[in-house]
């Protein structure tokens, strides 16, 4: 099968949806004529024209809010945030409007919007540009939060997200854009809410999402080769809805859990998962659940320290080995 970069796989998914449904429109800063800040939409404006790809001014609250309104009218907007960190400028729209309009209207109004963009640190852009808000957004019922870790999942999940009738907050990673995976050309969809066992193992479950999946897979190889530990790697793929079954099944099998996320620890995604495990698999645990998150401070700029602040392969290995 052919290999595709994560960004190209996303583009293929977006293009297939643009072609499938005339209501799909892509709006964001530099998405059209500039080909996207990270080249996800490269060539699309030339191919699909001004109506389907629109360059927005730097007005996130305005254009995201506009997209929410348009989605209420039956348009299916895919809004790009150049960085998910800029979602904070549009927070009111994302949380107060998109996530609640269906509820407050007693189910009369739908909001089928996708808000996508990279949500990660690790690239030396400092605290204002390195946010990972999946936990904060998923805290609000009415939102769906998706974090694809591979090109295959990125394509399948963006298509599922566009077809979804609820607001989907789709978080990518600038450090994955250039990585390649095998991706079929066809029109497949990866359903939202299904975790993926990216590697089978029997001694410990490493439960994670986003780029940490890639690091966990590398760590699992070292654990196997050098420490005789067989790690299973569970990729959540979607934060809300959350595939509880796959998590619990894995922990029941391995009896140990290490939760890894780039997010910070307080009220992180893994705090929820840790609770889930103690609630539903308490008797199966041979050791307390461990968490590895970013070091609990705003993102530091200094490149070597930033690498240290967010989880890395070495720290995952070390954390796995501390579990009795």
């Amino acid at each position: 099968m052919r290999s595709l970069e994560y960004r190209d796989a996303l583009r293929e998914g977006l293009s297939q949806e643009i072609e499938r449904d005339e209501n799909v429109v892509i709006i964001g800063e530099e998405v059209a004529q500039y080909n996207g800040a990270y080249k996800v939409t490269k060539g699309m404006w030339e191919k699909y024209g001004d109506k389907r790809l629109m360059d927005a001014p730097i007005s996130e609250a305005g254009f995201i809010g506009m997209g929410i309104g348009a989605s209420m009218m039956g348009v299916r907007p895919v809004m790009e945030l150049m960085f998910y960190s800029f979602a904070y400028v549009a927070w009111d729209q994302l949380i107060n409007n998109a996530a609640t309009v269906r509820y407050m209207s007693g189910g009369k109004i739908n909001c089928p919007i996708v808000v996508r963009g990279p949500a990660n640190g690790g690239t030396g852009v400092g605290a204002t540009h390195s946010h990972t808000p999946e936990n904060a957004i998923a805290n609000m019922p009415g939102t769906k939060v998706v974090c694809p870790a591979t090109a295959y999942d990125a394509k399948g999940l963006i298509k599922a997200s566009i077809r979804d009738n609820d607001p989907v907050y789709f978080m990518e990673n600038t450090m994955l854009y250039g990585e390649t995976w095998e991706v079929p050309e066809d029109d497949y969809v990866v359903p939202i809410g299904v975790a993926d066992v990216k590697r089978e193992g029997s001694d410990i479950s490493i439960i994670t999402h986003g780029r940490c999946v890639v690091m966990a897979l590398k760590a699992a190889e070292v654990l196997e080769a050098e420490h005789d530990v067989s790690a299973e790697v569970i990729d959540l793929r979607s934060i809300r809805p959350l595939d509880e079954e796959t998590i619990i099944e894995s922990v029941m099998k391995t009896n140990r859990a290490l939760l890894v996320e780039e997010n910070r620890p307080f009220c992180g995604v893994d705090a929820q998962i840790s609770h889930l495990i103690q609630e539903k698999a308490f008797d199966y645990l041979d050791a307390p659940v461990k968490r590895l998150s970013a070091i609990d401070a705003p993102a530091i700029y200094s490149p070597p320290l930033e690498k240290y602040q967010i989880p890395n392969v070495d720290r995952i290995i070390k954390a796995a080995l501390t579990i009795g």
Partner: protein
Amino acid sequence: MVKKTADLEYGSSRVNQSLSPEQKIGLLRDMIRIRRFEERSLKAYSRGNIAGFLHLYNGQEAVAIGAISVCGENDHLITAYRDHGHALGVGMSMNECMAELYGKATGCSKGKGGSMHFFAPDKNYWGGHGIVGGQTPLGAGIAFGLKYRGITGSCLCFLGDGAVNQGAFHESLNLASLWDLPVIYVIENNGYSMGTSQSRSSRYTECLAKRAEGYDMAWDQCFGHDIYEVRDHIQKAIDRAHGESRPTLIEIDTYRYEGHSVADANKKIYRAPEEIEAYKKTKDPINVFYSKLIEEEIINEKQFKEISQSASEEANKAAEFAERSPYPEPSSILEDVYWETDNPEQRSSKGRIFFNDEF
């Protein structure tokens, strides 16, 4: 309202007439120092010594230096991520700025902020802000702070032509005018927000600054390649702030020579190279001012070269300093987060503050 008049003899206006030859040479030197610093940092970036983004100020030097040079003791500055020029202008050293770019412990923010986040409150410089438009309410707030505390001063808040479309900026304009805040919003209009030309990002009549009329606020517009002109217009805004505690929105036409940031993959695509060359040829702020000083018989070529040479040396030394400096210790990641955790003996809150599992 003073409108753009290229022919005005700014050199003889009140604020410029009072300048001594030494002060004029000082202004030229300040601009050249920014240019050489930026060139040196670009070199460091291409060698992999600097991470992330690097937004260079080349071409816009007369705006920062012109504005800062008319500031008094109680006039403050705040800007966006294109912040190196303003930083050097207020007197931050090349060493601490370069070391910050390198992410070293000797940097102005101890390696924690990076290129977009320089600060020096002791020099009335409040950053260095990465979120477009995010600094604009802070600018109003600094002006509010001055007024509230009974200090006659102002806050110069710089932003780009793309930033005028952030909601927070519009809210700030209203607050500033409603509450008579001594804030001066300076739009550094370099024609582009990233790869988007001004006409593709903003709808306006005549100019962006005219939007102030909707907020019953004074506005002004001038060119940014002639430092005399910048000084003249900023001085008027400062007079308004000091004398009437009224805000001003001023738009200064300028130009950036490099890509939006050094990582701007499309830097050669969204504008013609001829456009850049034409500006450099006729409006380069350093050359324009140098020519004026030649005409005024204040400087000669030899002196100019010496200034340029010593600025290059200063920038090279700063890079050496940055290279030699240590990275911050890993333990410093948890420093500077809270006042209380940095001052544990004076802590008054209780409970756990940081939440990592230990490994």
